[in-house]
């Protein structure tokens, strides 16, 4: 039996492992432990550096459909007007409806239509970065595809990742959809103007989110209540200063 591979060939068979001179087939187990996310993560690192070189703070917004990501961007645009130059990447399975809303505000926006893919990835964001005037931006908001599960696994190369949960979705959703929260730096509980009409204990998602991510920043806001985004906008301003000076 061959001492190298244990293949049981007779001794006279040609069998030189050292020069890869096999002339008989044999089985071999290749141990690899190679991450399937590594290509995405390498692209994400490149995106982050590229954005940093252009002095742009990039923010990835993740949530289920209809939690108020686009409304948050619209409100933020009003808040930052004249102070920061805001650009947007919109990710959707279909239509450019969100991009049209953002474009109507006069902001540079690039639509990524993902077709059957339920999340943005770093390569899609890389393509979008080349379509935006980065030298004219201070803040880039990436609105991920409306989905609270899949986007959590894909680093886009943003400096901050945030999750939105609206009060109409229920206060039990953090523990039910934990993946996105683990990779988030901030968490916005949205549509708080509707709290009198729904059974939603604001403390419950805060508590559960901090179990998943101890240092998560939590904000409660409503795009319909003037001033309720002040805390969130101040947070972004602080993060931008910390990153870019």
């Amino acid at each position, binding site marked *: 039996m061959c001492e190298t591979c244990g293949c049981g060939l007779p001794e006279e068979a040609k069998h030189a492992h050292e020069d890869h001179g*096999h002339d008989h087939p044999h*089985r*071999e187990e*290749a141990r*690899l*432990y*190679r991450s*399937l*996310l590594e290509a995405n993560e390498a692209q994400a690192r490149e995106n982050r550096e590229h954005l940093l070189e252009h002095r742009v703070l990039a923010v990835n917004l993740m949530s289920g459909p209809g939690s108020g990501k686009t409304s948050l961007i619209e409100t933020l645009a009003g808040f930052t007007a004249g102070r920061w130059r805001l650009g947007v990447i919109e990710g959707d399975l279909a239509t450019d409806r969100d991009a049209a809303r953002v474009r109507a505000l006069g902001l540079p926006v690039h639509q990524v239509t993902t077709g059957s893919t339920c999340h943005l990835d770093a390569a899609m964001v890389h393509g979008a970065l080349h379509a935006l005037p980065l030298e004219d931006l201070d803040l880039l908001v990436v609105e991920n595809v409306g989905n609270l599960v899949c986007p959590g696994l894909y680093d886009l190369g943003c400096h901050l990742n945030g999750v939105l949960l609206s009060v109409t979705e229920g206060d039990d959703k953090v523990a039910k959809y934990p993946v996105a929260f683990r990779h988030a730096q901030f968490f916005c509980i949205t549509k708080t103007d509707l709290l009198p009409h729904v059974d939603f204990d604001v403390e419950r998602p805060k508590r559960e989110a901090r*179990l998943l991510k101890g240092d998560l920043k939590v904000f409660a806001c409503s795009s319909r209540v003037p001033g309720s985004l002040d805390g969130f906008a101040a947070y972004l301003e602080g993060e931008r200063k910390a990153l870019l000076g």
Partner: protein
Amino acid sequence: MHEWSLACALVKTAEEEAARRGASRVFEVSVSVGFLTGVVPELLERAYDMARQGTSLEGAPLRIEVAPVRARCGGCGRETVFEGYALACPACGRPGMEVLSGDDILLRGLDLEMGGSA
């Protein structure tokens, strides 16, 4: 269904590794799915069955192992293995433990036929 994107990455990576080693056939592909990825093994298997059609992996079924979460407490330093998401330290109660493993999806290995026609 991010399982589809992962299955496509899996087929590409496995074919790349098999070709690099000069394998003449792939018998089996094995992956390790970290619990924190939220990947559903049954969906990954179905997605893989679609993604491998017309590739050199047509005869290579997928073996999936779900890896539990191993995390270390930043307070008391204790390491714990979790079967779920609640990552507060069971010893001191501190939340937000450092995850050591269980948050990745790995191509663990390939069962290959070497030589023969090569």
